[in-house]
C-alpha cells in the first residue's frame, strides 16, 4: 500500500469518526456539558494550548509514562527470561504474578503513593506495575517458542547459556515480545493516569479531575482525553517503528 493511500485511509477514518461523533451530538441534542461537539472540543484545545493550560499536564504524563514504561518493560523482560528458562521460577512466581495482575491497581495505588512518599517515584512504580505483566508473559512465551533444534545446535557448537539467550532466543522471541510491548506501551498511559489519580498535582489525569469536578468544563475534559489518546497512539507508533526496524519480515 502506498504512503499516499495509507494517509488517505487514515484521514478518511478520522473524518468518519468525527462525523459519527457530530451526528450523535445533533441527533441526541446533547448540551455541551454532557457531550460537546468535535468543533467545540477543537476550539477548547486551541485555547488550552494558547493559554498554556495543557502543556505542563502533558509534560508530566509524558514523563511518568515514558519512565514507567521503561522501568516496567526492562524488569518484565528480565523476569520473562527467568520464567522461560527456569521451570522452578515459573512455578514459584507465576501464581504471584497472576494474582497481582488480578488485583485492581486502582485500589492499591493510593497506598503505593503513600508508601513511596508521593512524587514521581510513586507514579513510576504504579505505571511500571501496570506495564509489567503483558510484557513479562510475552517474553516468556516468545523465548519458549524458540525452535528447540536451533537451541540444541547452538549448544552443540559450544554456545554458553547467556549466548544462547542473547543471540538466539531473544531475537527469536522478538515478534511475540513486541506484541507484549505494544500492549504495555498503551497501558503505560493508563498507568500514568491511575498514578495521578492516586496523588498528583499535575498531569493529564489531574487535568481531567480539574475539568470534570473543579471547572465543570466538559470540553476541556475531552481535550485531556483526546491528548491521552494521541499520546497512546504516538507511543504505539514508536513501538511499531522499532518493531519494523528490529524484526525481520
Amino acid at each position, binding site marked *: 500500500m502506498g504512503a499516499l493511500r495509507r494517509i488517505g485511509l487514515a484521514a478518511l477514518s478520522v473524518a468518519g469518526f468525527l462525523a459519527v461523533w457530530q451526528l450523535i451530538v445533533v441527533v441526541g441534542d446533547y448540551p455541551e456539558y454532557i457531550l460537546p461537539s468535535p468543533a467545540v472540543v477543537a476550539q477548547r484545545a486551541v485555547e488550552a494550548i494558547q493559554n498554556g493550560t495543557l502543556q505542563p499536564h502533558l509534560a508530566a504524563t509524558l514523563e511518568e509514562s515514558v519512565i514507567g514504561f521503561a522501568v516496567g518493560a526492562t524488569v518484565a523482560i528480565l523476569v520473562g527470561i527467568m520464567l522461560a528458562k527456569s521451570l522452578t521460577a515459573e512455578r514459584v512466581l507465576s501464581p504471584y504474578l497472576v494474582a497481582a495482575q488480578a488485583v485492581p491497581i486502582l485500589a492499591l495505588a493510593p497506598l503505593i503513593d503513600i508508601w513511596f512518599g508521593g512524587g514521581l517515584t510513586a507514579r513510576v512504580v504504579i505505571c511500571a506495575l501496570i506495564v509489567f505483566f503483558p510484557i513479562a508473559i510475552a517474553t516468556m512465551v516468545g523465548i519458549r517458542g524458540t525452535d528447540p533444534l536451533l537451541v540444541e545446535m547452538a549448544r552443540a557448537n559450544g554456545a554458553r547459556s547467556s549466548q544462547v539467550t542473547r543471540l538466539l532466543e531473544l531475537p527469536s522471541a522478538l515478534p511475540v515480545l513486541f506484541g507484549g510491548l505494544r500492549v504495555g506501551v498503551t497501558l503505560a498511559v493508563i498507568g500514568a493516569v491511575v498514578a495521578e489519580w492516586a*496523588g498528583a498535582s499535575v498531569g493529564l489525569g489531574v487535568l481531567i479531575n480539574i475539568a470534570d469536578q473543579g471547572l465543570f468544563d466538559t470540553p476541556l475534559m475531552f481535550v485531556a482525553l483526546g491528548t491521552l489518546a494521541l499520546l497512546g497512539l504516538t507511543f504505539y507508533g514508536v513501538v511499531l517503528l522499532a518493531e519494523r526496524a528490529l524484526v525481520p519480515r
Partner: protein
Amino acid sequence: MFERKPMRLRPVMVLVVAMLVLAACTSASPSPSGTGAAELRPVRLLLGFRPDVQFAPFYLAQQEGYFADAGLEVTIEHASGGELIRLVADGQADFGVADATDVMVAKSTDIPVTYVSTLFQSFPVAVIGPAGTVPAEPAGLAGATIGTPGQFGSSWHALLALLDAGGLTPDEVTIREYPQFNQVEGLLAADVDLITGFRNNEPLRLAAQGVDTELLTIDEVAPLPGPGVVVGDAALEDDVAWVEAFALAVSQAQQAVIDDPDAGLEAAIEAVPTISEDVDTARTVLLATVELWASDLDIPPGFIDADVWEAGYATMEHLGFIDGSVPLEDMYWHAIRLE
C-alpha cells in the same frame, strides 16, 4: 301467590344486587391511600458519592412518608459531584445534594442548575491537624504542608479562601493532593502537617486512631454557603410547587432528625445496613452533622441565608472561581421561606 312472590322479592333482590355491585365497585376501586400512591410523582434523587448516615433526613423522609405526603415517590441513588450536577441539570435526575460553591462554578459555565435549599448552615470543611499544630488564624498556615483531595470541590474552595483570608497564596504553602480522599492516611503517615476535611468526618476518623485534633474553620473569616439541594433549571421553571414540596419534605425530615437523632440513625441503618456495624461511630458522625445543620439565626432547616451567599459569591469571584457573569440572584432560589 306465585305471581306475587316475585313482586315482593324484587325490592330485596334489587337491594342485594345493588349492595353486591357497590361492594364489587368498592373492592375494585383503590382506597384513598391507594389513590394517593397511584398519583405519586416519581423522583430520582442523587445524594453524594456513597450512602452515609449524614443523609439520614432523606432516608427518614422516604421511610416515614414525608415524601409520600408531598406526593413524591423518591428513588435514592448516589453520584460524585461533577456527574451529579450534570445529571440534575440535564433532567436525568430530578434533585441532588451538591456543594453550593460547585453550583456557583457550574452555573457560571452555563450548566443550568439552581440551589434551592440548604442542608448545612455551617460550612462543613475545615483545616484539621493534631492538637497544638493548627494555627488560630489563617495567616499561620504559611509554610505548612497541607493535604487536600485536589483542585476541585468545597475542600479546595475552602482552602484557597482560608489562605486568601490569611493574606497567603497557594505558593506559600505546600499542597499535597489525595484524589482518593485518603488525606487522613497521609496525615497519619506524617506526609503532611494538616489536611482539609469535613468537620463531621475526618476529626472523628483521626480520633479513632488516637489523634486529638484541632480545627481552623472558615465560617468566621470567609463565609461560604454549605451543601444543599439542587434542581435543574428546566424542572424549576416547569413546576415550582413540585420543587417546594420536595424541599419542604426534606426540611421537615431534617427537623425530625434534629429533634430525635436516634430516629435518623435508625432510618439510616434501615437504608444502609452496613452502618449497624459501627453504630457508635455512626451516631457520633450524625450528632456532629446535626451541629453543622444548625444556624445562629431563627430559621427553619433548608432556609437559604442570603447574607452567606452574598459573602460566598464575593469570595468565589475574588478567588477567580467564578467570573461574575451570572448574577448572585440566579444562583439560588428560596424553596423554603420564612413564614
